[in-house]
């Protein structure tokens, strides 16, 4: 048994870094604090790679399966003797894999930001937030129990809130951060309820005992029914709500495009590579339960994933803000991953989808981070988000151009880039189990290629735009991460995921299935071709098309008015028809009754003052009548 106890530092370091930069940051020099943060994360990255190496290549397997190792664990908060929140580190294939993803991208972003955020006000604040995020994300990844995961889940949410709202004087940024937090919070409510139901039935939070396919917990409550579904299914659906919120699945997706208000490195790190895939990770984490005792919930996952991928891809075709395009493509790619999980079963051949999903998660992290950082470099030089303001940039930004191209090819699934492999696995998995979803994904693959090259061409080729000051290539601090990531995106496809990350930890024999691979590559090329025709150089085709499908284009351009719907619900229904009435009711009914009691008392006291008339004889009269009435009362009426 290898000793993994040092992994605690993977959690502690970023936290300490956060405290240091948060409390003392404004005292340090901006540059120093930036370097500190980067250095700290460097160490963590090193530790993670060490861990990954030790886990995958030196830890012993039991009958060919990777074991879940609890590196360390201590009780943080005791509820009952069975239920308690622990804080700890759980190592298993997916968590280690995520460890790599998070630290790599995060490290890249740290370096990149040194250049990108140079001279920004609140530089040290930015880095402290980044450290906070890294801490939370790693905690989420390494959680040993679902409640720990929830805790870090929330922390991730808040750090994303803080980073989106980094430019807190910009109203749009503030609005976006608020939106992001509240939408995800709403989803997390589902997550929490799911946890409650789960824990009520299984009486445990611990992942290992929860997800042990032959354990007692997993079958708990699948017999108890509620409104037609088993409580287990209900809890899993609720948990998935949480995942959908973070991963911007329909209908919780609305926060992601707006989240692009944040600094671009943040978008790359949080809203492309790491945090948004937390939902996928969550489902993967609970996968045995989904697969074994809540298949219905798994179908929900599949269909939601599929729909989102299509829906987002369509919208992506119409947006002109490059970061938003990338955001929608992120959604659609995560849709892929969800779908892959959804179509998978537990163990063996049928577990292909699971492995594919994780694979795609990995590759996607690489190329999507690359895309965003590239976009960042572009924006950095052009000072605009809109591709309408760009064109012919290939001359000015060679490195960015190449890396961006690689990324585009990768996401379009063109071999030999990594995207091809992972996407191919997913399609294969879909093909195995559900032809309809398979068809959908095929279409999406094409659309993806189209819109990616749409922006590629219109940025780097297209019309020769005149810039008031000529764009210049980004500094090394920014280009180096691009290059590294580009390499990662290019080659990570050759990582033998089927040996490392599978649903049951055993090795899974896979190969390129040409029947699926070739058409998918072709459809990708087709999409590229169309984009080439439309955007290689200035042409009127796009406008013609837009005019032709006027309404559908308008709908897609306005993101199918989902935002407006939300706005309607929150502003009109919640605020105007619930909150305001409640406040009114409280003032004018509940409170009023209390005041009425008082005023009634006063009124009565005014009414009865006539008794005190000052007339001696009236007094005497009352006296006598009183006496007689008492006498009558107690002699005849109430004896």
């Amino acid at each position, binding site marked *: 048994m290898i000793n993994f106890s040092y992994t605690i530092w993977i959690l502690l370091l970023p936290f300490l870094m956060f405290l240091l930069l948060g409390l003392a940051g404004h005292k340090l020099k901006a540059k120093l604090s930036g370097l500190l943060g980067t250095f700290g994360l460097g160490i963590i990255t090193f530790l993670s790679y060490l861990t990954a190496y030790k886990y995958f290549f030196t830890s012993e397997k039991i009958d060919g399966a990777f074991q879940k190792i609890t590196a360390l664990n201590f009780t943080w908060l005791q509820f009952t003797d069975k239920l308690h929140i622990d804080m700890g580190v759980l190592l298993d294939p997916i968590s280690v894999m995520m460890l790599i993803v998070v630290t790599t991208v995060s490290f890249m972003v740290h370096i990149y930001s040194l250049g990108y955020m140079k001279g920004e006000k609140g530089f040290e604040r930015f880095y402290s937030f980044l450290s906070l995020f890294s801490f939370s994300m790693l905690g989420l990844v390494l959680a040993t129990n679902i409640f720990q995961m929830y805790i870090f889940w929330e922390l991730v949410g808040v750090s994303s809130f803080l980073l989106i709202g980094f430019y807190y004087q910009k109203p749009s940024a503030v609005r976006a951060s608020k939106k992001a937090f509240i939408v995800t919070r709403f989803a997390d409510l589902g997550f929490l309820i799911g946890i409650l139901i789960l824990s009520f039935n299984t009486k445990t939070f611990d992942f290992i005992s929860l997800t042990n396919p032959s354990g007692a917990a997993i079958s708990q409550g699948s017999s108890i029914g509620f409104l037609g579904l088993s409580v287990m299914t209900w809890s899993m659906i609720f948990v998935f709500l949480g995942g959908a919120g973070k991963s911007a699945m329909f209908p919780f997706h609305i926060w992601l495009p707006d989240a692009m208000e944040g600094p671009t490195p943040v978008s790359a790190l949080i809203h492309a590579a790491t945090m948004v895939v937390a939902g996928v990770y969550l489902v993967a984490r609970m996968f045995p339960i989904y697969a074994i005792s809540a298949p219905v919930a798994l179908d929900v996952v599949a269909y939601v994933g599929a729909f989102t991928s299509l829906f987002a891809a369509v919208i992506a075709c119409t947006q002109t803000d490059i970061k938003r395009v990338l955001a929608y493509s992120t959604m659609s790619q995560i849709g892929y991953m969800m779908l892959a999980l959804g179509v998978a079963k537990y163990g063996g051949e049928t577990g292909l989808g699971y492995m594919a999903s994780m694979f795609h998660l990995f590759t996607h992290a690489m190329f999507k981070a690359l895309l965003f950082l590239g976009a960042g470099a572009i924006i950095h030089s052009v000072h605009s988000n809109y591709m309408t303001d760009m064109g012919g940039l290939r001359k000015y930004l060679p490195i960015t151009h190449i890396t961006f191209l690689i990324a585009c090819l990768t996401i379009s699934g063109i071999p030999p880039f990594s995207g091809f492999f992972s996407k191919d696995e997913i399609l294969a998995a879909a093909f195995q189990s559900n032809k309809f979803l398979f068809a959908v994904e095929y279409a999406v693959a094409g659309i993806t290629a189209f819109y990616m090259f749409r922006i590629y061409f219109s940025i780097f080729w297209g019309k020769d735009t005149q810039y008031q000051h000529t764009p210049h290539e980004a500094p090394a601090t920014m280009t180096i991460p691009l290059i590294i990531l580009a390499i990662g995106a290019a080659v990570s496809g050759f990582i033998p995921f089927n040996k490392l990350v599978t649903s049951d930890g055993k090795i899974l024999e896979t190969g390129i299935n040409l029947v699926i691979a070739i058409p998918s590559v072709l459809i990708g090329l087709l999409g590229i071709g169309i984009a080439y025709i439309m955007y290689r150089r200035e042409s009127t085709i796009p406008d013609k098309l837009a005019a032709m499908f006027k309404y559908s284009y308008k709908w897609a351009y306005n993101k199918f008015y989902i935002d407006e719907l939300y706005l309607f619900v929150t502003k009109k229904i919640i605020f105007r028809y619930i909150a305001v009435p409640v406040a009114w009711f409280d003032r004018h009914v509940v409170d009023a009754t209390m005041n009425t009691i008082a005023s009634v*008392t*006063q009124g*009565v*006291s*005014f009414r*009865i*003052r006539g*008794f*005190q008339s*000052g007339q*001696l004889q*009236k*007094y*005497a009269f*009352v*006296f*006598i*009548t*009183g*006496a007689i009435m*008492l*006498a009558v*009362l*107690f*002699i005849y009426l*109430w*004896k």
Partner: protein
Amino acid sequence: MSSGTFLIMRHELLLIAAALLVLIAEIFGNPEKKSRISLFSIILMGIITAVGFLPSPAGELFGGMYVSSGTRLIMKNILNIGALLVFIQSVTWLNKKENSSKVSEYFILLISTLVGMNLMISAGHFLIFYIGIELATIPIAALAAFDRYKNKSAEAGIKLILSSALSSGVLLYGLSMIYGTTGSMYFNEVSGLFHNNNLQILGFIFFFAGMAFKISIVPFHLWTADVYEGAPVNITSYLSVISKGAAVFILMIILFTVFPVIVATWQKTIFVTSILTMTIGNLFAIRQQNLKRFLAFSSISQAGYIFLGLIGGNQLGMASVIYYVLVYIFSNLGAFGVVIAISNATGKENIDDYNGLYHTNPKLSLIMTLALFSLAGIPPVAGFFGKFFLFTGAAQKGFYLLVLIAVLNTIISLFYYLLVVKAMFINKSENPIAAFKSDFYTRFALGICVAGIVITGFASIIFEAIRNLSFGI
């Protein structure tokens, strides 16, 4: 008369002696130095009060017409303390020149009422009781009309004397019924011969009405406010505390000793009347502007609370009533003391005049606040303990509903007490009562009151003493 006799009825005898001494002092004393008389009578009263606490044997006189026991002694002592305080409080007022000619009358009359009350408390026979109660009432009427040049004073006098005459008429009529049905006026005999027939109940109700008049229980209370307002402040305080206390005591004694047979009836009676009293008293108090009138109504509602102690007909209730009267004496005299001091200094008696008093006369306002809180039953002052024990006494016999109504009433009362506090502390005023320094007597009296308000509650020994002594009446 043997020395034993003297010992037994020393309260009355000493008081009579005191009255005579004051009279002699009036006759032979130096007409210029009238003010000395007040000091003299205060000293006498002080001595009597002190002597009252000496141990004395329980016993009977005049064939059981006069009874003395531990309980009754406590009651008398409490009354004496109150009277002493009133004496001290009156000095400043008496030193004014329009009163300087009537100092001795004032004290003689007061003392004689005190004699009446003591006599009445010691009654073992309705005749003594009747003599006592009249002796306690008639001089008060004269005192109420003491300010000969004030219309209100005269009006107060006539209202008091006539309505009390009527009430004693009714009371006597009731007694005659009881006499007719039992053939005796001895407390112990009557209780034996009592058996709950209509005529007796009628008699009881009429008797009760007569007593309720003295305690100013609704609906027999209407004279109270006017008389309190009209009479000189000192007399008002005396009426509101001493007379009321004495009447409560004797009513309690008679209820417990004479009418145990019809306990069910008088519990109902008290139930109804106490609810009426608390509520009506509070409702009237809310709107009052004149502080004397205000305190009059507050004292009415206080009487209602006191009845909660009676209703149980139990030891605890009895003890708590006696205790509460003691507390009430301190609290109410404290409040009145402030009113007296201010009306002596400025002649102002309205709540509005008190606006911003705290900023000019902080001490007085604090004492007032303390007294009012004690009346409202706010801890940690004595009033809280008093009320708590009263309620406990009622609750012991299961009158939870009554207790609930009572405590809800205390909220109303708290409201109007707070109005005064608000006036003194919060309200702003362009011409507040100017800061003034009151003389020794006032400060002394107020000091005693404050001490009483604070100590009586915490020092459990006082309550315990009352509790232990008051076994049997």
